[in-house]
């Protein structure tokens, strides 16, 4: 009697295991039949749709494009392609296209905020980190060390200028004169300067030193070295 009960229990456990979301049968069913199966995706129902099991444990699945089987269009197509992030990407693509067609392109790029000179006048030894934050704003980095901390502000300013004489890249394809696309002279100049300020605090969060770079002085110095 006991043996019969044990065998039944074992069969039940095996059956449940084979039908569970992570079982071989369930995964094979999901892979082979997937969305067209009347049972749907067993693994998604059991384990949930938002996680998959990897060697690193449970990992969230945030991208709906990971489930594209038998779908005529990607899931959430109108919503995803109408969201602002997609608009920004489209705008960047259009700008790159227009730049390719333009004879002269000049522009500046900014990453971060360059600290103004007058803001740095508040810096003096002994002021607290709170006072620095109030005067300079949020830092790019604040790193605690054994004997104090480091607070860094960083910004990049880029300047680019491109001058192109000749037919635009695509236009020469429509003019049936061989070699016409060769008649093109292009001059491209791109400089990205970092503006860095690093403040050193002691263990009591009092400012003990600060350092700032001057990329313009370095550039002048480099030119002097090059012409020496």
């Amino acid at each position: 009697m006991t043996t019969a009960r044990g065998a039944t229990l074992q069969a039940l456990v095996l059956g449940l295991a084979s039908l569970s979301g992570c079982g071989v049968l369930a995964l094979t069913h999901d892979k082979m039949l997937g969305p067209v199966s009347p049972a749907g995706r067993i693994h998604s129902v059991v384990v949930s749709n938002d996680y998959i099991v990897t060697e690193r444990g449970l990992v969230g699945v945030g991208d709906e494009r990971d489930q594209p089987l038998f779908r005529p269009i990607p899931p959430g197509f109108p919503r995803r392609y109408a969201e602002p992030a997609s608009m920004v990407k489209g705008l960047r693509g259009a700008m790159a296209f227009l730049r390719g067609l333009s004879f002269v392109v000049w522009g500046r790029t900014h990453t971060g905020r360059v600290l103004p000179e007058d803001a740095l006048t508040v810096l003096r030894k002994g002021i607290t980190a709170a006072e620095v934050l109030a005067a300079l704003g949020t830092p790019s980095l604040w790193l605690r060390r054994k004997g104090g901390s480091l607070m860094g502000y960083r910004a990049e300013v880029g300047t680019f200028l491109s001058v192109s004489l000749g037919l635009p890249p695509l236009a020469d394809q429509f003019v049936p004169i061989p070699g016409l696309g060769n008649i093109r002279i292009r001059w491209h100049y791109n400089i990205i300067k970092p503006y860095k300020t690093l403040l050193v605090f002691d263990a009591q969060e009092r400012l003990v030193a600060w350092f700032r770079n001057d990329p313009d002085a370095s550039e002048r110095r480099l030119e002097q070295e090059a012409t020496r």
Partner: protein
Amino acid sequence: MRNFLAALATAALSGCTLTTEWRGDPGFLLEGTRSANAAEPSTDPTAAWEVGRTTLREVLRDVGPPDEILRRGRELWLVYRYRYRKARELRLVAYGGQFFRWYDGKDVDSMVVVALDPEDRLLYVGRGRYAGDRGVLGVLLDR
């Protein structure tokens, strides 16, 4: 004759691209940029650096703030980087295909890593493979 020379000059420059790009502050590559007194002769600011003695503040005083600060285990890395590219290129294209290309360029990708221990004292200095020959920190690296 003048028209011929103009046509010749145009033909010589056709398909030519001149590019100048740089990114970063090359201050850490230049000797003596942090000299407090401009009247003093240029000196290598890292010449006085000593492993186990030189402090974080002395490094910052000599070569300025880094581009990146990283924690690597118990070490603190100050990363300085400067990239420079100057190139001349000539391409001849016909029927949508490129049949000649000449490129003359100079690429410099200089990176210096200054490692400090938990007490903020110098452990070692590493330099990227393509660092410029004039890197002031080469003095330490060659020891």
